[in-house]
C-alpha cells in the first residue's frame, strides 16, 4: 500500500482502533505481507501471535495481502465486526485509488490549460509569421521540456518559413521532408532521426521526434515538431499536451496570416487611392467652351480605377476634338493602359491638326506594339466639331455605343468602321461626317451602359439606350448626362456595377 493511501486511511483506522482498545483489546494493527504498517497503541510492535489475535484479510485488487489484526480479544463477535471493518477499509482503499486517478487527470488538464495560457500570452505581441513561429517553437520546447522544437509553415505563395528553438538541430531540408510526410499522411508522426545539423557531442545518433500536422484554413499548412536529441521517448501525457499546443499554434498562425494579408491589402488600398487620384487628374478638369455646342462628360469606374477614358484634345484655333474610349479589362491594369492612351492622344494632338481617322491611325501606330506586348486593346471614338459649318467629323475604331439623335428625328447608332486600337498593325478607320445642328444630340458612351445588368441578368441594351436618347433630346447636355446615369442606376439597382461607365454628351445649341 502506498504511503499516501495509508496516511489517508489512518484517521478512520484510529477510530476503529480506539473503539477496540476501549472494549478491552490490547492492540489493533494493519499488516501487509506480514509486515506491520501501523498499530495502536503506538509503540514497539508486539510479535505476531496468531493464537491470541483475530485477523481478517482486506480484499483489494492489489497484489499484496493486507489484513487487520486485533490482539487481546477472543470475543466471538470480534470476527464479524472485524470483517465489516475490513470491507470498509477495502472500499476506502479503492476510493482512494480512484481519487488519485482523478487527481492525475486533473493535473494533466491543468498543466494543459496553463501551457495554452502561456502560449497565448507569449504570442500576443508577435506581428510577423517568423516571430509567431519562433514563439511557438520556443514555448513548445519549454512547456514540454524537450531539447528542441520546430515549427514550419508553407505560406500561400508556397514559400516555407521554419523556426527552431532553442537550438536548431535539423537542417532545413530535414525539417521540410518531415513536414511533407505529415502533410501527406495528415496525421502525427513518431519517429527517430539522425541529426546532421549539430556539433553537440552528447547528441546520440538517433534523436526521437514527434511531429504533428497543424490545420490552417482547413488545410495542413503547418507542422509542429518536438525533438529529444538523446532519444528520450515521448510519454502519452506529453503527446496529448503537444497536440493541444499544436492546435493553439494553428490559431496563432492563422492570425499572423490574416495580419499579413490585412497589411498587404492596406498597402494595395493606399496605392489604389493614389492611382485613383492620378487617374482623375488625367481626365479633363474642365469642359471646353465651344460655340454652338453644349458639353457634358463623366466617367464612373467599376473599381477604384478603370480603363474608360474621355478627353478633349486640340488647342486654340483648332476645331474641338474629343475622344471616348474603353481599354480592355478593368482595374489597375486597364488604368495603366488608359494612361498610355492619354499620353499618346495628347502627343498626337500637339503635332498638327489631324482628322479623326488620322488621329486613330497615329494612335494605333504608336501603341500597337506596346498593346500587343501586354495583350491589351482599346476601342475609341474620335469626334471633331466644325463650329462654322456645324459639321461633326468622326472616326470609330471599334467603339460602341455612340448614338446620334437629330432634333425631331430617330436616334441611331454610329457604327464602327475600324478595328480597335492595338488589334491590327494598321488602322482601317475612315473619316465620316454628319450635320450637327442646334437641338441635335450625340451620346458617346462606353459599353458599361449598354451592358449594365439588372438583378435578373437582363442587359440595358441598345434598344433601351436608343429609346432613352430620343426621350432626352430636348434636355440640356448636363441634364441628358444625369438622366443617363440615373436610368442605368435604376435599371441595375441591386446588381453591382460590372464595368466602367463613361459618357460624353454633345448638344447642339444656337450660337
Amino acid at each position: 500500500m502506498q504511503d499516501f493511501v495509508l496516511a489517508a486511511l489512518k484517521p478512520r483506522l484510529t477510530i476503529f482502533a480506539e473503539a477496540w482498545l476501549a472494549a478491552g483489546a490490547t492492540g489493533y494493527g494493519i499488516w501487509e505481507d506480514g509486515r506491520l504498517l501501523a498499530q495502536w497503541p503506538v509503540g514497539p510492535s508486539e510479535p505476531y501471535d496468531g493464537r491470541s489475535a483475530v485477523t481478517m484479510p482486506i480484499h483489494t485488487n492489489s497484489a499484496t495481502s493486507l489484513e487487520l489484526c486485533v490482539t487481546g480479544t477472543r470475543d466471538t463477535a470480534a470476527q464479524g465486526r472485524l470483517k465489516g471493518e475490513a470491507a470498509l477499509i477495502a472500499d476506502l482503499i479503492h476510493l482512494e485509488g480512484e481519487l488519485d486517478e482523478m487527481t492525475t487527470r486533473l493535473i494533466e488538464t491543468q498543466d494543459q490549460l496553463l501551457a495554452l495560457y502561456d502560449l497565448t500570452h507569449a504570442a500576443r505581441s508577435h506581428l510577423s509569421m517568423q516571430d509567431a513561429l519562433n514563439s511557438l517553437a520556443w514555448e513548445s520546447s519549454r512547456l514540454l521540456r524537450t531539447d528542441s522544437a520546430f515549427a514550419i509553415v508553407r505560406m500561400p505563395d508556397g514559400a516555407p518559413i521554419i523556426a527552431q528553438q532553442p537550438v536548431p538541430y535539423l537542417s532545413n531540408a530535414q525539417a521540410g521532408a518531415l513536414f511533407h510526410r505529415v502533410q501527406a499522411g495528415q496525421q502525427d508522426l513518431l519517429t527517430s532521426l539522425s541529426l546532421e545539423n549539430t556539433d553537440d557531442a552528447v547528441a546520440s545518433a538517433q534523436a526521437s521526434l514527434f511531429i504533428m500536422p497543424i490545420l490552417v484554413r482547413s488545410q495542413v499548412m503547418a507542422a509542429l515538431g518536438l525533438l529529444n536529441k538523446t532519444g528520450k521517448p515521448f510519454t502519452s501525457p506529453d503527446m496529448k499536451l503537444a497536440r493541444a499546443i499544436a492546435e493553439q499554434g494553428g490559431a496563432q498562425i492563422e492570425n499572423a496570416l490574416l495580419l499579413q494579408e490585412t497589411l498587404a491589402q492596406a498597402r494595395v488600398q493606399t496605392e489604389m487611392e493614389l492611382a485613383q487620384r492620378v487617374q482623375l487628374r488625367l481626365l479633363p478638369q474642365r469642359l471646353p467652351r465651344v460655340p454652338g455646342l453644349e458639353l457634358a462628360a463623366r466617367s464612373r469606374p467599376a473599381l477604384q480605377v478603370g480603363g474608360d477614358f474621355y478627353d478633349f484634345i486640340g488647342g486654340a484655333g483648332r476645331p474641338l476634338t474629343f475622344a471616348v474610349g474603353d481599354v480592355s479589362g478593368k482595374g489597375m491594369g486597364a488604368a495603366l493602359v488608359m494612361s498610355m492612351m492619354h499620353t499618346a492622344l495628347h502627343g498626337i494632338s500637339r503635332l498638327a491638326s489631324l482628322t479623326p481617322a488620322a488621329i486613330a491611325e497615329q494612335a494605333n501606330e504608336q501603341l500597337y506594339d506596346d498593346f500587343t506586348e501586354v495583350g491589351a486593346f482599346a476601342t475609341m471614338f474620335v469626334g471633331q466639331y466644325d463650329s462654322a459649318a456645324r459639321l461633326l467629323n468622326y472616326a470609330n475604331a471599334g467603339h460602341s455605343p455612340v448614338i446620334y439623335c437629330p432634333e425631331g428625328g430617330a436616334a441611331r447608332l454610329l457604327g464602327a468602321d475600324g478595328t480597335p486600337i492595338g488589334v491590327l498593325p494598321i488602322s482601317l478607320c475612315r473619316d465620316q461626317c454628319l450635320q450637327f445642328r442646334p437641338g441635335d444630340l450625340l451620346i458617346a458612351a462606353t459599353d458599361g451602359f449598354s451592358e449594365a445588368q439588372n438583378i435578373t441578368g437582363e442587359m440595358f441594351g441598345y434598344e433601351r439606350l436608343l429609346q432613352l436618347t430620343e426621350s432626352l433630346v430636348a434636355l440640356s447636355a448636363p441634364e441628358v448626362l444625369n438622366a443617363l446615369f440615373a436610368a442605368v442606376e435604376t435599371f441595375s439597382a441591386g446588381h453591382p456595377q460590372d464595368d466602367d461607365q463613361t459618357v460624353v454628351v454633345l448638344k447642339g445649341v444656337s450660337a
Partner: protein
Amino acid sequence: MTTILVVDDDPVAQRVLGAQLRKAGYIPAAARSGQEALRNLAQIPCDLAILDIGLPDMDGLSFLRILRADADHKTMPVIVLTASGRDDSYTEAKAAGANGFLRKPASSNELIETVSQLLRPA
C-alpha cells in the same frame, strides 16, 4: 528521500500538490494550518516547505516569520503560493523570508523546477 511539507488548508490543493510532488519523486507531508505545520516540523525532518499565504489560523507570511525566527528552520527553503495577481505579493513574501514564489495554480513543470532549484546544493 526528500520530504516536502505542503501547508495549505484547501484539501484539493493538498491532493494536487501532493500528486505533483510524488510524481517527481518527492515525499509530500501535509499540514492544514500554521500550527499543524509547526507540530509536523517538530516531528518530521522536512527539506523544503510550500506555504499557502491564506491559512485559517495565521496568514502564511506570519507563519514564515515564526519559521525564520526558529534556529532549526531558519534556512529551510520555503516557496510561497498565492492566488493573488498583485505584484507586491512577491515583494512582501521575499521580505518575510521566502525563497521562491508561485502563483496558483502552478503547472507541474513550474512547481518542480522551482523546488529542484531550491534544493540544489549551493
